[in-house]
């Protein structure tokens, strides 16, 4: 009993620790005063101004577009890679998995500058043949796809391992072609893994700063790089308002998903 109470208290403390800054930002988004130190009364004015702030809205647009595109492309690339790797012989499988893991295990700053060197060299080489290439939206997208890939592969892989291969063979046996068997039988079965890979990718892309910082060049600010560039001048409270909206939106969605009847996850576990 005592142990249970202590456990509860500990859990609450950790949650407090993880959510204290988030709570702080939410409070600040309603703070009438511009400075973050003083409470100037409740106000919704930052939410109003957010709608008029084109810089922030443009960065939001970039951020979301990059997150969606990079997550979609990484999911397609990563899922097909996972399937291929799953069927490889042990040796090539472990070599491939080490490559998959590199962007996740390597330091972000190293990945970032590696990209920067690649893109700048590419730009120099292409300018020789008269093609203009510089860092921007495209290079940020490439960077995000690359660091999203391991999350997709690692989400799909366990699903493939659980997949009963004879289900695929049964589909062929019952007259389905390879494509039909894949889309009707295999894909639905690994879908939870594919989806969680997609969502993780989306979240990682949204939250990234370091790699974007190195590959964005002059244009293509995301929310993260915009915030970083505002550090000196002080962060605009509109940013707090935007973050609060995004956070609460996701919170509501997650609560909704988790409060659904647990049927799905029950059958998942039995498998």
């Amino acid at each position, binding site marked *: 009993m005592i142990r249970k109470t202590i456990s509860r208290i500990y859990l609450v403390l950790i949650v407090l620790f993880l959510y204290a800054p988030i709570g702080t930002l939410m409070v600040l988004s309603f703070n009438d005063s511009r400075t973050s130190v003083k409470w100037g009364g409740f106000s919704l004015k930052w939410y109003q101004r957010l709608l008029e702030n084109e810089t922030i809205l443009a960065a939001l647009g970039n951020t979301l577009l990059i997150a969606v595109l990079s997550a979609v492309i990484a999911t397609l690339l990563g899922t097909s890679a996972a399937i291929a790797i799953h069927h490889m012989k042990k040796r090539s499988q472990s070599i491939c998995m080490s490559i998959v893991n590199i962007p996740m295990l390597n330091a972000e700053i190293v990945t970032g500058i590696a990209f920067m060197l690649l893109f700048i060299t590419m730009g120099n080489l292409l300018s020789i043949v008269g093609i203009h290439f510089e860092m921007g939206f495209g290079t940020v997208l490439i960077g995000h796809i690359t660091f999203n890939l391991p999350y997709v592969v690692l989400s799909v892989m366990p699903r493939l391992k659980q997949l*009963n291969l004879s289900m695929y*063979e049964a589909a062929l046996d019952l*007259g389905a072609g390879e494509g039909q068997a894949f889309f009707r039988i295999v894909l639905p079965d690994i879908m939870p893994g594919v989806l969680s890979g997609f969502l993780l990718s989306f979240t990682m892309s949204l939250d990234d700063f370091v790699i974007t910082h190195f590959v964005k060049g002059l244009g293509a600010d995301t929310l993260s790089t915009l915030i970083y560039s505002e550090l000196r001048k002080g962060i605009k409270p509109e940013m707090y308002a935007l973050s609060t909206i995004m956070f609460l939106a996701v919170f509501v969605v997650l609560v909704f998903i988790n409060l659904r009847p647990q049927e799905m996850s029950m*059958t998942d576990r039995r498998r």
Partner: protein
Amino acid sequence: MGNRLIDLQHITKIYDGHKVLDDLNLYFNENEFLTLLGPSGCGKTTTLRILGGFETPDEGRVIFSGEDITSLPPNKRQLNTVFQKYALFTHMNIAENIAFGLKISGKSKTYINDKIKYALKLVNLDGYEKRMPDSLSGGQQQRIAIARAIVNEPKILLLDEPLGALDLKLRQEMQYELIRMKNELGITFIYVTHDQEEALTMSDTIVVMNQGYIQQIGTPEDIYNEPTNAFVADFIGDSNIFPGIMLEDKVVEIFGIVFHCVDTGFGRNQPVDVVIRPEDVELGTPGTGTLDGVVSHLIFKGVHYEMEVTACGREWLVQSTKMHPVGEQVSIHVDPFNIQIMNKPESEDEEAVVLDV
């Protein structure tokens, strides 16, 4: 049993340098219940997968009604498989599972619905259309797997150890069910198992396999009563297998003692293997049989007692309804009809196999 339906000709399959099947020749008739029987690794499942189209043989051909289907993919073959662990589609309900093959081949809705009803009736699971596979017991899932296969009206149903995951009672029940279904459908069942009892109960024909070779083909009675070699004898039920010398026709010597038998044509003074089923060893009071021994072990097995008798320095396995306590002196007698003489395996390799088992 009707005409030849499918022919395996000179099939060889090699995995990682290891020959799983070596020049296998086998044919299957219409409306036949044929069992491929053997220990794990004997090549029976590989044979089945070659029939189903999941493996391509390295050498040899598969002929189906006169047509070469060796490299035809599984979805183009007129046979269906019941997989070892059922392989039901877990995200579809029972009706959708059964309808899968029919939808692929573009059958009409009413036809599909009729077929589902018919199939569920056949496997005694009427009314289960809307259930999910996860909510069914192992035995029920097994029946659905069969229903899903047979609605496509295959000429041959391949069954890969379909009862392996079920408990004993259910397994026996399903054995009768399978025989009934086979008779009702009038198609060929090719059944893979390592369980000799299952094979003996259900089959019209048994093919005993070991290490990629066919050891014997025959009816259950043939296989049980007249195994062609020590491997088959040992694999099908318990056996006493002794080295002997065929002195002349109908006379064999085991451990220096002469037994009479009914086999002829082995020549004179030829070394042979002698198989005696434990239920064929008759025990009596000392001095009344061919040789005497002492009971060294006794186990009650329900239907009968199983005893080991030490005689001539060897253990004789005996099954009898009459109990003889450990330490009792007994005589051993074997009816000449019940002594089965087999040639010694020719190659050392084959002998090694026998010792292995």
